[in-house]
C-alpha cells in the first residue's frame, strides 16, 4: 500500500461483567473498534472458543437486556465505536425494530447479525458479511446494503484461530474492491500479529475474535499487551 494509510484494528469481546474494563484495555492497546458479542445458545457461525464463551456468558445471565446495559457501561468508558454482534433469534425475540433502536441508544455505532445474510430484512441497517463463496451478485448486494464497512469472512468456515491467513482472502479483497466503496475488514481465523499484518497488507483492517476472547480470560493487562502487539504489527506494515 502506498501512503501509509492506517489500518483498522477491530477486537471482538463477549458481553460480560468485565467487558467495560476489557474493552478499555483493548482501546488502550490500540483497537479502533470493539465488537461486543451478545451470546446466543446456538451460534452457527462460531467455532469452539466463542461458542464456549457464549455458554459461559449465558450461564452468568447475559441476556439481551444485560448485554445492552453492558454496552452502555462500555460506551461510557471508551471513545472508539462499539458494534454488537449477535444472531437473529435475539432480534426476533426483542423486536426487529426495537433491538437496533435500543442498541443505538446504548451506544452502538452499528450492528452485525451473523446469521442474517444480505438481502434478508434489508430495512435493518447493519454491517454485512461476505465470504469466499459469495458470488459477484451477492458481493454487490452486500456492498450496497452495508453500514460503514464490509466484513470479509476470510475462510470458508466458522470463527476460530487458523495456522495461517486464508489463501482465499486476496481473491475476496480483489473482488470486493471492484464493487465496494467502503473499507474492507478481514476477520475469521486471524489470531497472531503476523497474520494480522499479512491480512492488513491487502485489506483495510482486521477483526480478531476468538484469540482476543481467549486472551481476555487472563485479564485486562494481558488483553492490552496482546492488542498492542497486533497494533504494532499493523503499524509496521504500513510505515
Amino acid at each position: 500500500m502506498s501512503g501509509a494509510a492506517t489500518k483498522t484494528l477491530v477486537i471482538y469481546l463477549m458481553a460480560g461483567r468485565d467487558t467495560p474494563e476489557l474493552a478499555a484495555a483493548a482501546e488502550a492497546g490500540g483497537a479502533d473498534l470493539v465488537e461486543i458479542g451478545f451470546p446466543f445458545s446456538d451460534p452457527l457461525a462460531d467455532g469452539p472458543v466463542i461458542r464456549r464463551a457464549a455458554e459461559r456468558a449465558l450461564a452468568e445471565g447475559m441476556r439481551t437486556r444485560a448485554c445492552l446495559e453492558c454496552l452502555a457501561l462500555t460506551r461510557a468508558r471508551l471513545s472508539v465505536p462499539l458494534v454488537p454482534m449477535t444472531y437473529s433469534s435475539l432480534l426476533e425475540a426483542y423486536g426487529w425494530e426495537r433491538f437496533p433502536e435500543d442498541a443505538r441508544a446504548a451506544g452502538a455505532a452499528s450492528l452485525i447479525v451473523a446469521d442474517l445474510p444480505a438481502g434478508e430484512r434489508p430495512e435493518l441497517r447493519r454491517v454485512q458479511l461476505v465470504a469466499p463463496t459469495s458470488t459477484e451478485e451477492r458481493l454487490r448486494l452486500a456492498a450496497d446494503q452495508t453500514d460503514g464497512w464490509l466484513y470479509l469472512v476470510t475462510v470458508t468456515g466458522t470463527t476460530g484461530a487458523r495456522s495461517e491467513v486464508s489463501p482465499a482472502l486476496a481473491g475476496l479483497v480483489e473482488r470486493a474492491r471492484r464493487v465496494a466503496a467502503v473499507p474492507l475488514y478481514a476477520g475469521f481465523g486471524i489470531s497472531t500479529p503476523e497474520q494480522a499484518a499479512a491480512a492488513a497488507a491487502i485489506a483495510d483492517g482486521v477483526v480478531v475474535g476468538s484469540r482476543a476472547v481467549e486472551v481476555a480470560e487472563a485479564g485486562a493487562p494481558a488483553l492490552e499487551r496482546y492488542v498492542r502487539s497486533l497494533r504494532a504489527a499493523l503499524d509496521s506494515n504500513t510505515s
Partner: protein
Amino acid sequence: MSYGEYGGRYVPETLIPALDELEAGWREAKGDPDFAAELDRLGREYAGRPTPLTLAERFAPGKRLYLKREDLLHTGAHKLNNALGQAVLARRLGKTRIIAETGAGQHGVATATVCARFGLECVVYMGAEDMRRQHPNVERMGLLGAEVRPVEFGTKTLKEATSEAIRDWITNVETTHYLIGSCVGPEPYPEIVRDLQSVLGREARAQVLEAEGRLPDAAIACVGGGSNAIGMFAGFLDDHEVRLYGVEAAGAASLGAGRAGVLHGARSSLLADEDGQILDADSISAGLDYPGVGPEHAQLRDSGRVTYLSATDDEALAAFGRLAETEGIIPALEPAHALARAGKLDGDVIVVCLSGRGDKDLDQVLARR
C-alpha cells in the same frame, strides 16, 4: 418467506451460494423424468416401496384404524425416502461427501445406508446422550462405513448435532452435501424433504381408497422436526374432509408450547425463552427430542388445517406396549406418540403413520418397566 411468516434463510453468508445451487439443482431434478424414474426404481427395488397399509383391529376395536407401515421400509423407518432422494440429488450436484445429523439414529442409519449404496463418504453428527440411548444405531452406522462424530456439548442431543453438522457444512461446503433429516433448516430444505416424504402420503391415500372405497376421516402422525407427518399430510392437504393431526412429545411441544423464533436457518415455532435463547426439549424419544419444528408445520398450525396434540412419555410407552401385544408390531417410540392419540380421535376410518420400528428402543423401554 415460503411458509407465510415462517421459513427463510437465516444462515451465515458462506452457505447462501450453496443453498442457491441446491435450489436450482432441486428444480431441475423435479422437472426431470429420469430423476423421478430413478427414485421410483430405487424405492421399489432397494427400499421396499410401496409399504403396506395394515388394519389394526385388535389395537383399536370398533374402528377402522390403519397403520402406514414405514417400519417395514429398508433400514426400519421413513427416513430412507428422504436420504435416497437427497443422495441422488447430491450426485447430480457433483458432491462426493455427505454429512448428516441424527437424533434417534434412524436418519443417520438411512444416510449411512445410501452412502454405502452410492459409494459416498459419510459423516454423521450425533449427540453423546443420544449415542448412549440409541446405541444399536451407532453400531449400525459403523458397520455401514460411516463415521459417527459425537457432539459432547450443550444438550448432547439432536439440537447440538444439527448445529455441528451446519458448522461442518460451512467449512466444507464446496465438496459436501448436507443431507438434512427433517423438514427443517433454511430454504429449500423444508420443501425438498416434504416432497421426498410425500410418497408415503400419496401411497396411504391410494391404499385407503382401495381398502375402504373412501377417504379416511383423519390422518395422524408424530411430529419432531416433522418429516413423516409432512409426508403424510401432503397426501391429504387438498382433501378438506380429511382431518389432520400431528402429535408432539409433551416435553418437546414446539408447536403447542413454542413461540416464533429462529433456529438452524429458519423462522418457525420453537421452544425458546423470552430472550430468544433456545430451550432444552425433553422426551424419552430421541427422534422427537428437538426444540424446533419445520416451518410448514407452524404455518399449518396457524391456518388451522392441522391440529397439533401432544402425548407424554408414559402415554407413548403404553401405546408402544399395546401395539406390540395386540398386533405383533413393535413400533418406534416416536410413532408410539401418534398411536397414543389415534384411538381417541373421532371418526371411523383413521390412518396412522407408523414411521419406524422399535428395535432401537428396547433398552429404553425395558429400563422404564
